[in-house]
């Protein structure tokens, strides 16, 4: 199930990630109410909506941090809605956090190397019995991590503890960390929030470049303006439901969207 470059195909129209009839209720209130969505390979889908629209709940359901009350989630054709968060990445789906969560005391390089999956050196006995295999795995992981750091323009900071990074750099680091696992799809939780405008540009560029290489992105964002340039398709949520879906331009022009934002959540 691991992301395999050769398996990726831009012409593959089957959805990489698909949710059907997704519901999550908290004490009877449906934060996410019968949401359907599907994202295909290399696509960048934006999910936006006013506060309380259910974006975060939807995100947490997809990331495996919440169990759905009803509905299904398919990742590369496999049902995953009951699988714990820690198994998602090995199944091909990575995520970042709204407030980035770097391992502050560890170097930037090792932060990224932690994204590697099925690393021989992460097993106890391999370190005692097969040190040369661990060494080789570690060398490969380091080479890949340095490549990603260079791609994210963080290479000069590789040896620094991650706590020194700015918010924007932390978001780039999180993206590098998750790309280390070569996921097929990445969930981005408000990737632009709190990021310096210069880094917003770097970040959107990098996301677009990764999507051109076949990685699928689903990003949740509060403000449409921040992601209009990056996303091919936008899904607007309000009161737990999908209100509109379409191109950023079409969605921006839709009066229902303006109403949802201006009029607050309609219940």
């Amino acid at each position, binding site marked *: 199930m691991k992301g395999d470059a050769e398996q990726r195909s831009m012409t593959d129209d089957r959805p990489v990630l698909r949710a059907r009839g997704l519901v999550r209720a908290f004490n009877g209130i449906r934060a996410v109410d019968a949401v359907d969505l599907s994202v295909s390979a290399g696509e960048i889908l934006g999910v936006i909506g006013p506060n309380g629209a259910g974006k975060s709940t939807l995100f947490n359901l997809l990331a495996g941090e919440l169990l759905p009350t009803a509905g299904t989630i398919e990742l590369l054709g496999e049902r995953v809605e009951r699988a714990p968060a*820690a198994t998602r990445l090995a199944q091909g789906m990575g995520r970042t956090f709204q407030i980035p969560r770097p391992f502050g005391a560890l170097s930037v390089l090792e932060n990224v190397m932690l994204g590697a999956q099925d690393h021989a*050196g992460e097993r106890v006995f391999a370190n005692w019995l097969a040190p040369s295999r661990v060494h080789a795995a570690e060398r490969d992981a380091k080479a890949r991590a340095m490549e990603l750091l260079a791609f994210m323009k963080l290479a000069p900071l590789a040896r620094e503890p991650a706590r020194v990074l700015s918010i924007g750099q932390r978001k780039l680091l999180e993206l590098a960390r998750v790309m280390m*696992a070569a996921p097929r799809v990445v969930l981005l939780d408000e990737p632009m929030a709190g990021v310096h405008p210069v880094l917003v540009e770097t970040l959107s560029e990098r996301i677009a470049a990764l999507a051109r290489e076949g990685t699928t992105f689903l990003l949740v964002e509060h403000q449409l303006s921040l992601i209009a340039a990056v996303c091919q398709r936008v899904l607007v949520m309000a009161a737990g439901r999908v209100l509109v879906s379409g191109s950023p331009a079409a969605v921006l022009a839709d009066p229902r969207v303006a109403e949802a934002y201006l009029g607050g959540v309609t219940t």
Partner: protein
Amino acid sequence: MSGALSGWLAYAASFGVLVLVQGVACLGLNLQWGQTGLFNVGVAGLVAVGAYTSAILTSAAVAGHSGGFGLPVVVGCLGAVLVAGAVSGLLGLLTLRLRTDYLAITTFGVAVVIDLLIRNLTGLTGGPLGIGFIPRPFESLGLGADAFRAVSFVWVALVVLLAYLLLERLVASPWGRVLRALREDERAAAALGKSPTRYRLQSFVIGGALMGLAGALQAHTLGFIAPENYSAALTFQVWAMLIIGGSGNNRGALLGSVLVVALWSATGLLAANVLPPDWQARGAALRIVAIGVLLAAAILWRPRGLMGESVTVSRHLDHD
């Protein structure tokens, strides 16, 4: 002259054995707390499990007691490591999903249960009297007391060196990196596919096994063990060693052991030689206060301990 010198050496050897024994327990705690962030306050219980396991496996049979298998010391030590590791594993399976404070309460409770078992399973553990005549390696060579102490130091040092090297190899690795990541931010580590339960359990078991080894080494150097060796004061000492030396750094853990044992011995000598007889009991209590003061000073002025941890975990990234 040579008598004074050998006396001094013998004292140094006894001191060294004490440092090494507690140092191994401290290395175990460093793996659990320093590397993984698991708050174990049942250290003494696991040391006791190791001590009693090895003592029971290696001692000669005594009428009226079960146990007393008369096995070689090596087997006793390995048994101590396995049994203490297994007890940790069981404890871990039950508690590692709990939050830090609940884990602390549970580990403390387990240490109390172990203490009660040792005091009451008289047929196996000798109860309050403990177990005596535990085999001490090289005792049969008939060396003088001083030479025997030196030889004891050497074999214990070799065992500890082996344990230290195995542990360093394990911790300065991608595995150790995962532990540090889990300690820093469990949710982020889980999002990277690292199973918190799996790695915590591994860390808890290996740390507990080291505490068991400490108990076995103590049993085979002292030659007798009793329940009061494994009171909460031992747990406190091992924690003090780790915090003073530097949590997250194995060399720091050993340095902390040297300092705390030195302070413990020095205040002991001071109390015995300076204080009047009717103050002796109070002097013993003041020794614990002295460690507390050192601990407080370390937390105030060197919160990361004398040796901090490094930014790069994996030894494979060192030379480039």
